């Protein structure tokens, strides 16, 4: 096991860790002071060269995203902190909001300063009511301490932060769906390009970053890009909050160096599987990632590139563990039902396809399947989300990546456990 010492969650066991006074005592807001003395473009350069990649799921370079903001426009710029955490298996942003809200806010203020934005939003999922109340306190504390508002800490920089509650829609975690929702509409994603950095909120340049991504920013400013790059793999470095849930003895959020082995994560950090059962399959990066079989899972590092090489993805780093007692058809149905419920309905392949996946999986579970159902499942996933073979690059059948997000996991279930799927075509499942 590595000697990694938590960075983002260092203080979360302290009772008072959410307060401004505690955060300041622990060195909080020194990065903001440093950043306000830097040129905005130097802040962007520092974050860009740290190779910080987005923690929400897509893994895009945060600093590079910031450079896309046009400099020659009179339009206002906006920053949106994406706190719409909804990916099944993911529960880390909620922890950061509850336990380290000022760390996140400091990252927001620095990011806003870097892109020359004077109004920033926190889009928090509607269900997180306690977290919303916490954020209101945090923002009030920040205004009172001149960390927000006019002339922040004696500089000539102004920033207001508005908390905006969602109302129950997974798709609003997708950045363009989020922007539509913030504008007061249903959360229907937009075609890209134009990307939000060019045309986002109110058609103005907008950056959308995840809670955990922004929480890394103060540490990068304080300790430098080189330090950040030294943690884990250089192309996608840094601390990472891994969430482990499902059939494990000790589920939870584990902050580790990027690149920890999935085996260590499941069997050491999360305490292994209850009752001495065997591992069967794992979602490595939230329910949108292709599942790994037990053999594959024992041979993978939790970083961006190694998981792509295994034809899955790190995504939101939400690990869901399934043991030998879990029926794969049943688990696949559970996930397909989630996507059918959450499909925004804008694109026909996704709206109709997810519904058909559920219908077919339901009849398989009921022992009323047809011999053609396995091929049908594969055909539907291809219709919604293209081929799973990344090298063929057959994506883009829907406006947003939700199509791939349902196609990849469902297809991986069927392909990796085809025998199990075939065996239940004519036989009703007897569930444990």
């Amino acid at each position, binding site marked *: 096991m590595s000697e990694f010492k938590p960075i983002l969650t260092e203080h979360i066991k302290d009772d008072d860790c959410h307060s401004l006074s505690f955060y300041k005592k622990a060195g909080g807001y020194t990065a903001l002071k440093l950043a306000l003395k830097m040129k905005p473009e130097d802040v962007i350069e520092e974050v860009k060269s740290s190779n910080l990649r987005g923690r929400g799921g897509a893994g895009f370079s945060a600093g590079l995203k910031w450079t896309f903001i046009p400099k020659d426009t009179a339009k*206002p710029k906006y920053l949106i902190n994406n706190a719409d*955490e*909804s*990916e*099944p*298996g*993911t*529960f880390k*942003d*909620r922890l950061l909001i509850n336990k380290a809200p000022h760390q996140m806010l400091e990252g927001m203020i620095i990011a806003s300063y870097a892109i020359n934005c004077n*109004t920033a939003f926190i889009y928090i*999922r*509607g*269900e*997180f*009511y*306690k977290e919303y109340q916490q954020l209101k306190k945090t923002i009030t504390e920040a205004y009172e301490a001149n960390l927000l508002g006019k002339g922040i800490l004696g500089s000539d920089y102004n920033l207001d932060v*508005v908390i*905006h*509650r*969602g*109302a*129950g*829609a*997974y798709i609003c975690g997708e950045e363009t769906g989020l922007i539509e*929702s*913030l*504008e*007061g*509409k*249903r*959360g229907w994603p937009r075609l890209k390009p134009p990307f939000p950095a060019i045309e986002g909120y*109110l058609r103005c340049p907008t950056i959308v970053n995840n809670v955990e991504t922004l929480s890394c920013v103060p540490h990068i400013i304080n300790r430098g890009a080189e330090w950040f790059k030294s943690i884990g793999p250089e192309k996608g470095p840094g601390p990472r909050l891994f*969430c*482990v*849930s*499902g*059939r494990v003895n000790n*589920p*939870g*959020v584990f902050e580790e160096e990027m690149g920890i082995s999935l085996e260590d994560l499941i069997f050491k950090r999360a305490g292994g599987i209850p009752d001495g059962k065997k591992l069967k399959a794992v*979602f490595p990066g939230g*329910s949108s990632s292709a599942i790994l079989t037990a053999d594959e899972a024992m041979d993978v590092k939790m970083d961006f590139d190694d998981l792509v090489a295994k034809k899955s993805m790190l995504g939101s780093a*939400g690990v*869901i563990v*399934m043991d030998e007692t*879990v029926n794969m058809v049943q*688990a696949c149905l*559970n*996930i397909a039902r*989630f996507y059918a*419920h*959450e499909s*925004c309905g804008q694109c026909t392949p996704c709206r109709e396809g997810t519904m058909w996946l559920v219908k077919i999986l339901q009849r398989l579970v009921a022992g009323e399947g047809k011999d053609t159902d396995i091929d049908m499942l594969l055909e539907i996933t291809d219709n919604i989300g293209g081929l799973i073979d990344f090298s063929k690059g057959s994506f883009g059948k829907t406006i947003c990546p939700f199509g791939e997000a349902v196609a990849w996991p469902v297809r991986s279930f069927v392909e990796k456990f085809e025998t199990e799927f075939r065996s239940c075509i004519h036989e009703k499942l007897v569930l444990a």
Partner: protein
Amino acid sequence: MNSKSIAKEKFVFKDMVKVENILSNYPDKKSATLPLLHLAQSQDGYITTGAINTIADLLDYHPAIVMDCVSFYTMLYTKAQGKYKVQICQTLSCSLNGADALVDHMQNKCGIKAGETTPDEKYTLMKVECLGSCGTAPVVQINNDYHEGLSIEKFDALLENLE
């Protein structure tokens, strides 16, 4: 159709200061749609036709556009709900840790199916998708509060203790 039936249903926000504060938060007032809907729902327990009309007037929208928004979000209701909305997460990590048994328990105890409200309007049972608390599965949200790591016994005691 007589004139009475097409007259607009009335709704008045009780706290206009809150409404003004919400509107002042945004560079474009249409962005206030969701916060105003949340506020209206906190007043009546659900979104009435009157509330849709009032919000549409405030934001220069056609009411159909506001209704379109309401219909998209699972947390916005267009009908009265029970005093306690018992929302049981049924997505994978909760399902693997006993969420289905919680649904069965409540169905048996209260005699209602998912989506239904008890005759005394005390409980509404809802099966919901991932609440983002998979590490403490199974999780149930009752109104605004999360209840985590529930066994059937704990869940039962929780329901019993609701006034």
